[in-house]
């Protein structure tokens, strides 16, 4: 990666540049692996890159960075993802 020395607003690709944004979440997506057909729609649509794609196209959710927007649950054709209110800690 090339780093530039000019002083302007440049940010470089980095995991969690804004901290662990999973803390913003109100509703948590819960994946039912039994129902999942590995179509990868959730992986395509997730705006935060918080769906982790495995070698065999199975998916997991990265709760450190998932903000709980619910797009994955909305896009899932087999209703394998449900949104559940976060417990108070």
């Amino acid at each position: 990666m090339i780093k530039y020395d000019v002083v302007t607003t440049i940010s470089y690709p980095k995991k969690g540049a804004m901290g662990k944004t999973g803390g913003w979440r109100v509703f948590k997506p819960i994946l039912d692996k039994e129902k999942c057909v590995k179509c990868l729609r959730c992986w395509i649509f997730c705006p935060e890159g918080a769906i982790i794609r495995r070698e065999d196209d199975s998916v997991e959710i990265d709760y450190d960075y998932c903000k709980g927007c619910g797009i994955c649950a909305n896009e899932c054709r087999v209703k394998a993802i449900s949104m559940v209110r976060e417990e108070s800690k």
Partner: protein
Amino acid sequence: MRIVVDTGNHIVAKAVQMARVDVVAAYPITPQTTIVERIAEYVEKGEFHGDYICVESEHSAMTACIGASAVGARAFTATSSHGLLLMHEMLHWAALARLPIVMANVNRAVGPGWNIWSDQNDSISQRDTGWIQFYCSSNQEIFDTIIQAFKLGEHEKVQLPVMVNYDGFILSHTSLPVKIPEQEEIDEFLPKRKIKWKLDVNNPITHGNIIMPNDYPKIRKAMQEAHENAHGIIKEISREWEERFGIHHGELLELYKCDDADYVLLSMGALGAESKVAVDEMRKKGRKIGLARVRVLRPFPKKEVIELAKHSDLIVIDRNISVGMEGVLFTEIKASLYGEVDAKVYGYIAGLGGKDVTFKDISKMCERVMDGKYGGYTIFDVEG
């Protein structure tokens, strides 16, 4: 080197062609239109090899230049008055992003009343956007300054956009002789742009992202330092131009008969050229007066103004008004002197909306001061 006789606007188009600009994005507006028309003719004849983007507004023109400059292209636009004002938001963006875009702004009054004639209120009101601002007083100076503006803006210690201003019609549509160097000489003076940062799919970054209060002041400080650097680099570049081409328009100020002057007159643009005639006329009558034509408003030539005021009192003529205060040059000159030197500064406003200001008018303003009859700050054309 050859001499051509042409209008200020056509000379700008020539300079843009010879600077090997990669992208021109512009929208027509009087009195700038003939710049973009001439560049379009170059494209049509195959004499301009950059991309020419027709856009739907000046806001888009500046945005297209920002995009082009951010991927590493040499970008140019031209506008006037209301067109410049429509760009305002993106002018800040270009400067904060440190993109060395060059723009020709043909000074024109702001409406209403609808007025297409010379007045500096359009560019003066963009003073705080972070752009370097030049004011020219001849077509030769326009050509030279456009080429120099790319070198200055792209200098690694500057990295800022540059606005080259000159008077609508007085220069934009008036033919004057201009010495044009050979293409190879321009190429030698102005090599290809060296890029300090760019948007690049092979090295992905985000530009213009959120920035927290602890970091934002660093960006402003860096811009301020870049302007301070530009102060010295403008001088270096004007000296290099003189060595190569034998033409010199002054550094940040053009000084004329200032050495023994009791009074020094300060003005900008074509008014500055007319002031030279006025100084000659007054010198014939034995008046010890000189001229300091302000070529650069940002960075402001503070040190140079202080030096002048150590030996002379100053008379300032503004072709602009910060309504509710006074002419901007008058304000800034007084601010530069504060706590440094105790000279008297006298101000006038003249020539708003293209109102003609002759050397006789200028002499009248100056003689009033020198005869102890300065009646206070006035808009000369209205109050006489």
